[in-house]
Structures are given as C-alpha cells and as structure tokens.
C-alpha cells in the first residue's frame, strides 16, 4: 500500500513562523501538517495525514506573507522563512464563507446523527461559522441511511464531498469502490452497480469521513458519542497489534476505533478486528465456574473451582509426575499473565509440556496477520515454550493419546479446538483424567471440562501485548469483568499460592512488568510507566540505552 504523502524524512529542517511562533518543519512537508504537529490548529476537511493532498474543501486557507491571495495550507510546502498568518480578518472571512456554503445544503440532522459530538462540521461551525442560517431555499435531497456496503451506512445529504473516502479506497485499501459521480452541486459519492464498498478495511471510511455521511453500520444509532468512555488499547484480533480506542458505555463495549500509531497501523484497522469485540459481552460468555462431580458439571464459586484445579494438579503431579501434566494456552493473554503462568508451570508444577495454540487465518501485506492472536510472541518471550526435552503441542496431543498426559489445562479452548480440529479435540478430551478449561468463550470442549474456570477478556485487563515484530504495547481496562470473574493473572496467582502453600502474591501487572524487564533479556530497560500510548520496540530502547 502506498504512503500517500511520501517520505520527507530525509529532507532538511526549515523554520516557519506561524502567527508569530517559530516552529521547525521538514522542508517540503505540507504547512498544514507542520502546524498540526506543533499543536497549531488550522481548520481543514479534505486534508488527512495519511491520504494524498486533495486541496478542494478550501477550509485551510491562510495568509502567507508576500502573497496576494490566501493559500491553502495543505498544499503549501514548508520553505525556509515562510511567514504565515492564520488569524487575519481575511482568513476569518474565508473560513466563514466555506462554513456558510457547506451548510446551505446540509440537512442539519445533528439530533439523530451518529457523528454529532465528533463532527468537524459542528466543531468548525461553532468556531468559524456565523451561528445563523440565511437560506430559505429548499435543501438538496439525497439518499438517507442506505447501506453502501455490508458494514457501512451512507447518508448522502450529509456529505461535504471532501473525497477522503474516495482517496482511502484508491490509496489505502486499493479497492476503488467509491467515487464522485455527477458534477457541480449534483455531485455525489457512490459506488458502481454490483460493486459495493466491501473490502477488509471498509469501515475506516467512517473514521476518515469528517461528518456523519459514512457511518459504521455496527455503531449506527447505538449511542451518543459523548456518553462513551474511551480507553486506549490494542486490538486483540491478530499479531499486528493495531492501536485502538475502546468506546464503552455502562460496562458495555459500543465500538472499537483505530488510534494513530505510525509505527504500527498509521490510522487504520481492519474490519474483522474492529467488529470482533462481540465476545466480551456475549450472552454465551462463560461467566461461571464449574466443577464436575458424579452428576455432571455443577456451578460453583470461583475460589472453589480454583481449589479443585489446584488439587487436581497436585494429585496428578504426585501420582504420575510432572510429565503427566500438559498446558496449552491461546495467544490472548497479557505478557504479565504469561510470565506468571510460565513461572507456575516451570517452578511450581515443573512441567515441561507447555505450548500455545494459535489459529491461522487469512493475512495480507498491509495490517492483517495470519496468526489470529495478539500476543503469541509475548507468550513465547515470557517462557510459554516447551521446556528442555518438553513436549510441544503435537507432542502433548500424542502424549494424551498415549495415556502419558493425564491432565490437560487449556486456556482458551476455542483456539485449541480451531487448531486441533473438533474431532481430535473431543477424542483428546475423552482420553483425559482431568480437563481444566480456562475460557471466555464456549467451545466444543466446554461440556467435557472437569473443571471450568471463567477467564477475562483483554478489554478488562491492564498489561502489555508484544506484537509480531516485538513492539511492546499497553492495554488498559475499558470495562469490568462480569461479577465473580477474576483476571487470568489473578487465577494464576491464586493457583500458585495454593500449590506452593504460600500466601498468594497479588497480581499487579505493573510490578510483574518490572520483573519481566529484569528477567527477560529483550525487555531489559523497559519500564511499564514509560510505555507511552504508542508502545516501544525493545530493540529501540536497547539501542537508545546502548
């Protein structure tokens, strides 16, 4: 995929004065970009940092010293000594003009528009507009609330024709579904017959759309955005680790949106990741602990289930040795949790049959990775690898079938089932003495669990994920776990306590991270608090410390 604005990294720095303030900018970079990067707001619609320059909305006009006419800041390259005035009367009048003209045909249906509250048209209208409408002529009519693709709704009347969406499908998704039809004031955005907006990144057009013309179908009429509590996090969908914001309302996730990180996902995320949060609040989510007795699975309190799990682990280990225990985890836990789990396996249980089950799906050459878990790399770096002479997943399965492994502890049995296949997974379950499942979502194995521990989702946790290139990124809790559910790391802490006979050490992600930094070579020098919003590549830190 193309980098729209090209790389200006090699160009020299120049000094530009904006409203009397001197800033340093890259020679040739768009003046608007330089201003925004330095916290100087110049209103704009068609400009987007990750799309080519369009220059059509004319909102970003500024006065450049020595030029007669106003210039658009988005198409003005930074040059040494450029002196810019963004506040002159002429600039204000030009902005007022763009605002009034954008609104002459606008439906003004803010009360029912999902964009309200994060709408450029509203915001700039308030700041740069005229606060009263003087047109009485009928406004242009257009399509309302029509699907323009399976995941995006379109409201033609609200469109301001900034063409960000068109450029997105030309330059980023490279699928070219959207274009401008018609000319003049009959122009409209549309698709060709039989070619709806349907690509793996389609919902990003709703993010780039500065108004409420393109909207995520999933979020459509769901919640006023000002009621959302937004939490910075990372997408759990694959190992790319796209940076996101989780928008929640009363303990319920309403949407995920991408958060800019030029090193990872720029400003984008895939549709599958964006829409993949449903399991968090799903009706069939595993919320209860169960333990099997003669009559079958019984709902019990979580601590009773943990006690039962500890007892089973102890018994098998005592009766058959550590080699009779196998642990298979998904790639969805945090580094801190894996670190505790690895410690529990290695030191307390001394089992060496530990591995991951990460399902593979489709990947591409942009964001989407084939391995569908956010933290497989972190898991391995935390020690979730078969110990010396230990068994990997294939070995564990064989050992179960051979009757050598009698207790299997699966964390994330849905992924396990996906990797192993339902039939074999069920056969494996049938061979076991004890099957401990620690799950968020039900799987074909759920019925077969001897002990079921409810797990927590990434949206409920603090901690870190390490993406496929080794970038360590923080996640933060956006919602609470259901009543009575512990974080997976807390379960590991409780089990470690129970099995070692010592008082359980509370699970505090930030201190676990410090332990990781001290213990795991690649993480040396990282401090939890200093992992900013954008995360850190350990390699960069090492070089920096170097």
């Amino acid at each position, binding site marked *: 995929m193309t980098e729209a604005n090209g790389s200006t990294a090699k160009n020299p720095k120049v000094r530009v004065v904006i409203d009397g303030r001197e800033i340093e900018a890259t020679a040739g970079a768009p003046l608007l970009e330089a201003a925004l990067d330095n916290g100087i707001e110049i209103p704009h619609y068609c400009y987007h940092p990750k799309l080519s320059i369009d*220059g059509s909305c004319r909102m970003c006009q500024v006065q450049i010293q020595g030029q007669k*006419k106003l210039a658009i800041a988005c198409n003005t390259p930074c040059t040494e000594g450029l002196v810019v005035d963004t506040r002159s009367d002429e600039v204000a*009048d030009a902005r007022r*003009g763009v605002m009034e003209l*954008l609104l002459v*045909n606008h439906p003004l249906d803010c009360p029912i528009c999902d964009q309200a509250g994060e709408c450029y048209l509203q915001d700039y209208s308030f700041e740069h507009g005229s606060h009263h409408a003087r047109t009485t002529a009928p406004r242009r009519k257009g399509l309302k609330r029509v699907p323009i693709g399976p995941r995006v709704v379109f409201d033609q009347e609200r469109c301001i*024709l900034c063409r960000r969406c068109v450029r997105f499908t030309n330059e980023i998704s490279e699928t070219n579904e959207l274009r401008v039809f018609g*000319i*003049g004031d009959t122009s409209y955005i549309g698709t060709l017959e039989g070619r709806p907006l349907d690509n793996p990144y389609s919902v990003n057009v709703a993010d780039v759309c500065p108004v409420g013309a393109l909207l995520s179908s999933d979020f459509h009429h769901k919640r006023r955005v000002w009621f959302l509590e937004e939490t910075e996090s990372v997408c759990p969908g694959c190992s790319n680790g796209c940076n996101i914001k989780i928008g929640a309302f009363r303990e319920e996730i309403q949407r995920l949106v991408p958060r800019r990180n030029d090193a990872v996902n720029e400003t984008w995320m895939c549709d599958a990741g964006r829409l993949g949060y449903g399991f968090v609040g799903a009706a069939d989510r595993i919320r209860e602990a169960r333990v099997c007795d003669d009559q079958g699975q019984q709902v019990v309190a979580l601590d009773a289930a943990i006690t039962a799990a500890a007892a089973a682990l102890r018994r098998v280990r005592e009766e058959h040795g550590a080699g009779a225990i196998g642990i298979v985890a998904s790639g969805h836990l945090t580094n801190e949790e894996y670190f505790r789990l690895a410690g529990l396996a290695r030191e307390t249980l001394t089992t060496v049959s530990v591995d991951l089950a990460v399902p593979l799906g489709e990947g591409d050459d942009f964001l989407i990775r084939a391995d569908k878990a956010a933290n497989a790399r972190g898991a391995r770096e935390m020690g979730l690898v078969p110990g010396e002479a230990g068994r990997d997943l294939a070995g564990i399965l064989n050992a179960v079938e051979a009757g050598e492994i009698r207790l299997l502890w699966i964390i994330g049995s849905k992924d396990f089932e996906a990797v192993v296949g339902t039939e074999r997974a069920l056969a494996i379950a049938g061979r076991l003495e004890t099957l401990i499942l620690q799950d968020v979502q039900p799987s074909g194995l759920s019925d077969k669990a001897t002990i079921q521990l409810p797990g927590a989702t990434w949206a409920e946790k603090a901690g870190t994920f390490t993406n496929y290139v080794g970038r360590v990124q923080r996640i933060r809790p956006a919602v609470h776990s259901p009543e009575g559910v512990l974080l997976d790391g807390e379960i590991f802490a409780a089990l470690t306590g129970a099995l070692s006979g010592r008082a359980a050490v509370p699970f505090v992600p930030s201190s676990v991270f410090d332990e990781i930094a001290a213990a795991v070579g690649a993480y040396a020098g990282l401090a939890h608090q200093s992992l900013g919003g954008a995360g850190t590549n350990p390699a960069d830190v090492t070089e920096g410390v170097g």
Partner: protein
Amino acid sequence: MSVTASAPRFLLPPDSEIWTSLEVYREHGGYAAAETAIRSIAPAAIADEVKASGLRGRGGAGFATAMKWSFLPKDGSRPRYIACNADESEPGTFKDRQIMERNPHRLLEGLLIAGFASAIDAAYIYVRGEYRTAYDALRRAIADAHAAGLLGKNIFGSGFDFEIHVHRGAGAYICGEETGLMESLEGRKGQPRKRPPFPAISGLWKRPTIINNVETMSHVPGIIANGAAAFRAVGTEKSSGTTIFGISGNVQRPGAYELPLGTPLREIIFEHAGGLLPGRTIKAVIPGGVSMPVLTAEQAMAVTMDHDALQAVGSLLGTGAIIVLDDQQCLVRAAAVIAKFYRVESCGQCTQCREGTGWLHKLLLKVESGAGSGADLEAIEDVARFMEGHTICGLSDAAAWASGWFLRRFRGEFEAHLEGRGCPHDATSFEI
C-alpha cells in the same frame, strides 16, 4: 481608428475564402515561416522573437506567451508536450472556431514552430465536442501535412520530429480550464488540478507541458514570417497584434471580426456589427465572454478593447467576446441565466464554487421572481466575495464576477424587482 477593409489580418483569410486545403494555404505563403524557423533559426531566437512581439494569450487570461514557454524546465528532459486549447466554451466566444474551420493549417504551423522552439515531442489539440466541422478540418489538415512531410519524422530534413493529435471533448466547459483539459485528455473526469505543480513542470501525463489557446498559437507563424515589429505595429503598447472579436447579442450583424487590439468597443458595435436594432439603446455590454465583469453603457462607449483599458474600467478583455444587452433586456434575468451556466458547469470540487454557484442561481431566480429582499442582495454580495480568489480554478471567480458585477453596476434594476414587484420587462427578454 475606423473600419477599413485593409486592417491587417494575421489569422483569418479574406471573408470570401476558406484555406482548408494545404495547397491553398501554401499558395498564400503557408509553412514558409515554419520552414525558415526550423531550417535556419535557433530555437531560442524563435522564443525571443515571440517575446519581442509582446504576444499575450488569447484564451482569457492574457498571459505573456513567451514567458509561459520559458517556465519549461531547462534540463532538456523529454518527452514534453503542447496542449492546445480548442475547447472554446466561454459563452459568447466563437473565434477559435473561425481559425480551425477556415484556416486550420495556420494553427498547425503555429504548433510546429512553437514545438520546434521548445523541443516539444507532440501537440494535443483539445477541440470542443460540438465543433465537428473544426475537428474534421483539423484532421484533414493534419493528414495532409503529414503526407507532405510537414509533420512526423525529420521535418524539413532538420532531424526534428513532431506529431499533432486531435482530441474531441464531450461538452464540459470546465475542460477548457487548462488542468481540467489535461485531466480530460488523460481520460479522467475533467476536474482542474491544484497548483503547484504547474503544467510547465508537470502537465500532461506529469510531463512538462505548454498550454496555449488556438488563437495564441495561430499568431506565431505571422510573427516569425513578418517579424515582431510588424506584429507590434498593430494594437497597443501592452496589447499587440490583432484578435478575433466575436460580437453577439442585440446587434444587427453579430459575427467574428479580426481587428487590432485597442479598437474602440463603440466602433466594433456600431460599425462592424452594424449597430443596434432601430429605436434601441445600449443598457450593458459584456466585453470578454460572460466570465468578465459587465460594463455600463457609459463605460462601454468610452472603452477600447485592450487589456489596460478594460482593466482601468474594472473589467477584463477575456476572450474578446462582446455581448450587447439593449434596453429591452432584464439584467437580473441575464445574471440568472449566466449564474445557471456556472452552476451546471462547476466541476464541484471546491466548496465555494460547488455550493456558491447553486446558491447564487437560486438567489437570482428569487430576486427576478419578485420574492427577493434587500437581504438577498446582501447575500449575493457575500457569496460572490466568498467565491472569489479562493478556489482551485477561475470558474468560481468568473461566476462571482458575473453575478457580483451585474448587481454592483445595475443595483437599481435589481432593487426594482424586490418586495413583490417582480420583473418589469416583458417576455422578449431571456428565457430562464
């Protein structure tokens, strides 16, 4: 100055003649200038001669032609192109058509000389879609010139290769704007490009490109044949040579007249175009196509048709297309008709133009119908101000000038329509 049959003609054959055939054109000295230039004049000297002639663009903006050519990169990189603007869509304008239909080789010869002067590989003539006759004449002329070795490889044995292609437009005014033309020629929707980059650096297919009007290019052979001084001897100091004035509207003999720049507008109306219909008086005159600010009768009677004089009275020469409106015409209607033109021809990229052209049209219809008020006149002024000088191309400015200047110069007539009074003119005025 007065009407003289002997006024010099640089562009058009005598009224009774058509020089579409190559033989006829050569009988009148055709391609001699090209041959001299290519065989024996250094490219730089050709450009110098054009510079000395003071030739200014005839497409509307009056930009100095040699100066435009000088913006091409000096690195000798190829290919580079000429885009020749034959879209001629400015309402009231029908001058390039005269050249293409009656003297097409003149244009080809101009392109050839300009091409040689600037080391150009090929010229593309973008012809207005409705100009079928002009298109056919150009096609034939190109084929004939090719057959005669005047185009193609190794022209005049000089080693210079040059091709001319013709492309028909599909009827959009905006494809006459130079970068809209290039988009259209490249096969996309005709929408002007933001600048920078300018065409001389990145034009057709992102290559250096000269863009000139048909008439501009057609002046080049005469300048080379007769010398810059002969060209300068006609016209005024800052507006040299002749141009083809197209005059239409309420005159007796509308038509195209090749005359020196600087000819008094009064002379063109009353002598060349035969004056008004009996009993009528002039109310307003648009001097350079509808994009240029309208003049009052008083201004029109005093002005000469050259760049400086028109600028001095608050208008512009534009394409030299004169539209005369007599006392029977409703100027609010005239303004509304013009506003509608811009509304349907705006490409729709820029906010001010897309929304402003539509709003201006609606406001003018409202005023014309009698439903308007003082606030609507104020809105017209504001919208025109918002639209002017703030967009990608000049269409928005043109639309703003048209409505804005009709209102400013004829406010009384607008006010007479307000508060339910409606149009005081009868149905002989414009259809809207």
